[in-house]
């Protein structure tokens, strides 16, 4: 193995069936249902998935949901805004913890 991530491995995802077929089947059924059009459109769901993929920094998911977003009718502008949403939450999540730093600072300093 030259690298931990290989694009071809994405196609092997279904091999996770081996070893725990019942769990795989349940995951698959739930996963499929999640991405069907509901109160949110399939395009909106694909863009949320793309944003989350960036937040969790999963290369497989970024590959899959860039394609999915395009195939659901999104364009680069929409996908870039989705990535900014993920980045803003990640950045904001760090920054908001500054409140804790301030609390500790307040307690310890005169």
């Amino acid at each position, binding site marked *: 193995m030259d690298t931990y991530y290989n694009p071809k491995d994405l196609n092997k995802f279904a091999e996770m069936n081996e070893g725990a077929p019942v769990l795989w089947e349940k995951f698959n059924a739930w996963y499929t249902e999640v991405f069907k*059009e509901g109160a949110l*459109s*399939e*395009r909106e769901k694909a863009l949320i998935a793309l944003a989350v993929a960036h937040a969790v920094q999963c290369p497989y998911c970024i590959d899959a949901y860039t*394609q999915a977003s*395009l*195939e*659901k*009718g999104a*364009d*680069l*502008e929409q996908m870039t805004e989705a990535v900014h949403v993920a980045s803003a939450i990640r950045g904001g999540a760090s920054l908001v913890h500054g409140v804790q730093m301030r609390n500790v600072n307040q307690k310890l300093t005169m």
Partner: protein
Amino acid sequence: MESRHKSMKAFGEDLALPEVQLQIINRNNGFPSFEEKYLEVGEGELRTGKIEIMQINLGKMCNQVCKHCHVDAGPDRKEIMTKETMQLCLDALASSDIQTVDLTGGAPELNPDFKWFVTEIKKLDKHIIVRSNLTILVTNGFEDYPEFLAKNKVEIVSSLPYYKASFTDRQRGNGVFAKSIKAMQILNELGYGKEDTGLIFNLVYNPVGAFLPPGQECLEKDYKRELAKNFGLVFNNLYTITNMPISRYLDYLLASGNYEDYMTKLVNAFNPAAAANVMCKYTLSVSWEGNLYDCDFNQMLELPVSEGAPRHIKDFNQAQLEGRKIIAGQHCFGCTAGAGSSCGGELT
């Protein structure tokens, strides 16, 4: 990928040759053959039924040079249907019960006898569809064409790969989106796309890249909302079409390193329900020279109708053409992937 200004043929590129394209798409790369896969439909081999549409390619000349064009059309292409061949088409139509005539190209309006041909088809009381690229309708010398098409109640089907300029211009050339919007405004003013006018105006989406099209119904809502909000435009239906891995789109796939993945995607997405409704079952395609094909894609690959059937419009015989075996190849996976694809959009 840079914009093109001329066809692949003008540059003498090998890929402009149908035999080179066929060699690539039909090479054994581990995919099942289309003919083998089609058997999953459960109807035996792929054959035509009753011919409902005669799709006539009036020539390869076009004012645009789109990156995905399966015709390799462009301003440099001189292949244009003559009035004599048009007359042969009219004779064939008069002898048949085919109800719809679908005019394509290139830009069909660039044929010097386009107006005469439309007027003559109209006399035969056939429904006429023109595949217009929109920009030709706002080109000098063609300003009266929208009114002419409206007067003859011609249905217009036009490509607009996205409801924003970015994708549209990247595929069809700089400035195409703005010109298309201008043409659509003129068409709307004439009543095209509006209820109760009888003037049908449909748009076509095709992916700007190596991916499959979105669901037609869902994307149509987006198009209608955005075009109305941003430009006050209306249209009837949106057709989503899959790009065929031939000609300039094949060139793009190979140059961008997407060919294998795209073919895998098409083959894996084979849908027997879509395959059962492929348009070649009810369409006859006529080339600018009058030769007969199963579809416009086979026409560009120079794959004529099966042996035994009339192969030129001068020999047109509806009974002999119906029920013929369709000449299929690996490119046919483009019509059967996902929800399917045809000149009228999804097939399921």
